[in-house]
């Protein structure tokens, strides 16, 4: 297992090293320009206002990228591991399907969690960089409000840390479930690819049907509107249902990898 983990982590590290460094660099630049422009701005507009808009848009983009791109990378990587000739080596590895899958998922989860963490930090730093400013009369109360918020935060520090961690982990877990969903169907495709002529459209169809069914079952069982953030940071039974479905999917993928998948 150690060998697999080394291999998967090295893979993901090598792949994302430079893009992560770039992202961090860009974030720093935007944060600096945001705080400068906001502090020195007066109402008359002009270049500084433009700069501050630009910075905030930039920070919002960084936030979105940090949040979403690890998931997309995970989905892409798994697809490549089943379809690229450079991944044929992985098929030769004498380790069972579940172990290989687990190593991949541990690396995916670490990457996704880091992304979520980064997104949260960017959000936090953005808010921090604009604290204590008075742009117009509407926000003149803001300094006082901010102080209230800061006092509240200080008082409930421990609970806050716990709740924040919980939220961050469950967001990461939710993103991982999305990856699992895609990976299940990629794996199914490589089981069917040499057996049925229309394997690709069939898999698409199966994926669509499954996602609708899951959504419908979820609504039925838990009377929710199918909104993602509710499903993720939500009640005990619903989380349990989600977890059970994921566990079954994970087992199924492992089984297919072990006994049924074929390469191109």
């Amino acid at each position, binding site marked *: 297992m150690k*060998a697999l983990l080394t291999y998967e982590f090295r*893979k993901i590290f090598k792949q994302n090293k430079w893009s992560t460094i770039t992202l961090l660099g860009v974030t720093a630049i935007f944060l600096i320009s945001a705080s400068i422009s906001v502090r020195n701005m007066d109402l008359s507009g002009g270049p500084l206002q433009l700069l501050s808009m630009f910075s905030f848009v930039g920070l919002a983009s960084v936030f979105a990228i940090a949040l979403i791109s690890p998931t997309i990378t995970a989905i892409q990587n798994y697809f490549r591991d089943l379809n690229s000739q450079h991944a044929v080596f992985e*098929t*030769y590895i*004498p380790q069972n399907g579940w172990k290989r899958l687990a190593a991949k998922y541990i690396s995916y989860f670490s990457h996704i969690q880091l992304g979520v963490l980064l997104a949260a930090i960017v959000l936090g730093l953005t808010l921090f960089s604009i604290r204590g400013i008075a742009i117009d009369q509407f926000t003149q109360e803001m300094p006082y409000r901010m102080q209230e918020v800061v006092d509240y935060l200080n008082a409930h520090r421990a609970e806050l840390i716990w709740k924040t961690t919980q939220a961050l982990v469950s967001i990461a877990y939710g993103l991982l479930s999305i990856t699992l969903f895609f990976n299940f169907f990629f794996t199914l495709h490589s089981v069917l690819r040499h057996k049925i002529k229309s394997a690709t459209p069939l898999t698409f169809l199966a994926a669509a049907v499954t996602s609708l069914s899951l959504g419908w079952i979820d609504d039925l069982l838990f009377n929710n509107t199918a909104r993602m953030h509710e499903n993720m940071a939500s009640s005990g039974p619903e989380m349990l249902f989600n977890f059970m479905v994921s566990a079954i999917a994970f087992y199924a993928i492992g089984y297919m990898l*072990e006994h049924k998948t*074929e*390469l191109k």
Partner: protein
Amino acid sequence: MIKINNLSKSYCNKPALINASMSLAPGKIIGLLGPNGSGKTTLLRILTGELRADSGNITIDGEPLSTNTKARISGLTNTDFMPQGMTIDQAAATYELFFPDFDRSQFHSLLADMDLAESLQISSLSKGMKSQFALALAISRRARLIVLDEPLDGVDPVAREEILDLIAKGFREESTILVTSHLIHEMERLLDEVYFIREGEVQAMGDVETIRESKNISLDELYREVYRK
């Protein structure tokens, strides 16, 4: 002994391999010779685990093919099978990570013989050098079965000689080397036993020297003789 019994495989109902049977003994270099599209690659990819047979079975020293037996099989079905973006050195290290039977020192000496520096990026190598590197990797494992699919494919005549040399150097008493090729003439000198394959059907032809002795023809000619309609 590696036994392949009545192996069949179809791609979307088009048969690629039909009741193929082979017996592979250790300490032999065995050829599976036939034209492109005859099913050689399919058979080899089932051995390496890239494909699954529809029916039939394979046993390695009595044990059926499984994830565990992968440790005893060294495959080379395509030159670019290692991940991208690595140097030869890094690729060998990754390989070694999963295959304890990898003989790093043999790999070193094979590379030295070919004048290939280990610090080179694999992507910068020519097709011939890449083939040599991949072959050196696969053949430096003390595996029970070494499976080489068309190792001479797409390689210039000079590099081909070096590859034949490499295969000869990789010979071990405990291993079976199974090689496929459509370049029958060039492979002949390396082979102990030969099987012919055409349109998915495998035929055992036996010991190569005996064939030359009794029939006084080359394998090339024998193939044409056997399959002339």
